């Protein structure tokens, strides 16, 4: 059951990321353009000071997902494939994100997303999100257009780091797991796509010992409904730009179904 009747449902992840979303340009059917801004606080950074790829994946999924959703109205969307490639993770901040629609079809919408360092407009990352268009029971979310969703700033001294917010625990050298708490769900009531993608980053770094993940392709194949969600890593090999890994996420509480399959590169 979706939470689209409640404007606050499924917003926990965006609030944690400090993401403010704003629809820009002309409001029109079958298209949309969304800008996002988010701080780059210490709790979203890794020990080497870089912004966590997991945070960028979460931000990109949120901005591009909203963009695709607005273009898909009166339907709404779920993420099916997120590709994000980092260019420079050593950001000053804040982060500026922009998403626009590349193609809208009957069943899917494709959006492109860029992330820039608000400090000097340096490109931080860019990618593509493909989403499936669904018809929510009870209808899509009702938004005043052009849409603005603000996230109040969080106290950087008391806000948990990304791994802690997600609740990551080590299972073994190649595996991490999380419980599927309500804070990690999206308005559909399933695990937020951004958290699924962030878990790929966490698992890749955990298994390789690398300091950062630099790119990820995530295929969301089934929803995460029950948990715990277990991410298992297979190391494919090493090359000049890092370790190439395959990550598989399963929902243990839903007959151990495969939720997502991902490929990532971790370096450093």
């Amino acid at each position, binding site marked *: 059951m979706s939470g689209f009747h409640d404007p606050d449902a499924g917003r926990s992840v965006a609030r944690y990321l400090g993401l403010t979303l704003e629809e820009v340009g002309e409001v029109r059917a079958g298209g949309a353009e969304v800008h996002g801004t988010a701080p780059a606080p210490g709790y979203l950074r890794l020990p080497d000071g870089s912004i966590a790829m997991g945070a960028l994946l979460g931000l990109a999924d949120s901005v591009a997902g909203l963009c695709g959703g607005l273009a898909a109205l009166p339907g709404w969307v779920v993420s099916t494939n997120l590709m994000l490639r980092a260019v420079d993770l050593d950001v000053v901040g804040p982060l500026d994100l922009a998403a626009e629609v590349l193609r809208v079809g009957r069943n899917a919408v494709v959006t492109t997303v860029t992330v820039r360092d608000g400090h000097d407009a340096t490109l931080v990352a860019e*990618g593509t999100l493909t989403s499936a268009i669904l018809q929510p029971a009870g209808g899509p979310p009702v938004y005043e257009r052009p849409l603005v969703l603000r996230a109040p700033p969080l106290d950087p001294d008391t806000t948990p780091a990304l791994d802690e917010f997600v609740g990551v625990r080590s299972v073994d050298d190649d595996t991490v797991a999380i419980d599927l708490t309500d804070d990690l769900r999206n308005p559909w009531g399933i695990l937020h796509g951004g958290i699924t993608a962030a878990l790929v980053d966490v698992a890749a770094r955990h298994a390789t010992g690398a300091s950062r993940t630099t790119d990820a392709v995530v295929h969301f*194949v089934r929803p995460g409904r029950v948990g715990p969600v277990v991410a298992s890593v297979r190391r*494919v090999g090493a090359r*000049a730009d890092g370790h190439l890994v395959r990550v598989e996420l399963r929902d243990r509480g839903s007959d151990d179904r495969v939720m997502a399959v991902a490929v990532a*590169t971790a370096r450093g």
Partner: protein
Amino acid sequence: MTDAAEAAYPPARHVLRDLGLATETGPALRSRGSIAVGEHLRTPAGVVHAGAVATLVDALGGGLAAMAVHPDWMATADLTLHLLPRRDVAEVAAVGHVVRRGRTTVVVEVDLTASGAPLGLATMTFAVLARRDGNPVITQPGGVAAMTMAVPGSGFRAPLEESAGIVVIDGPSGTLDLPISEYVRNSLGAVQGGMMATLAAAASDRTLTAASGATLATVDLEITYLSLAKSGPVRTVTTVLAASPDDGTARVALVDTGAEDRVTTIVRSRAVRVP
């Protein structure tokens, strides 16, 4: 594949035949395929051309997806390829399986090896389409079905890019053209997905090598297919996102110059130094 479709596509002179793609398909939506890697499938860096591997996985994955959606049809929505830069590859072996068959999409994953050791991974998403007249009929075999695309006389006589007809307009800026010929078309009359990947990899190799100052080989391709390229020539518009002596990242847009420069495909690529 059956009857008329087998006879009609691919034609006798076609990149899939020159690749010599051989496949074995089982009843459980799993398939194996392989291509031999001769001199014409190597890049100047000495590794197998990412476009050749993309063509292999596109054909293998497409066959699996077609069986999964039967009696409907499908089109490739995205293809990702991640390779290890190995010089010792004489044959690429691919093992594909259907990860998920949903109502509107099919996800296929392909493991790539050479001489029994990992070479890389590929993934694909296919959009499920209603069947139209002329779509090939591909059904799951009862047992293991083996086939080869090669026919007498097939095989590359020139490097892959030259065989495909790719024209380098300006290598360092990553501007290349691909005129559309029967050799590179798919069964829908558009440029075959693997050939779009080959064109993007060719642009990526050249522009990232120029930007980095070292010979790099494209190892990652993340491809989103937006529309079919039917008119041509298809031109690459390449943007370097980052470059160092060890690796580089680029964005390649493939535009159909015969269709008002419509962007048909977006590709992000990474090239690395080959040890």
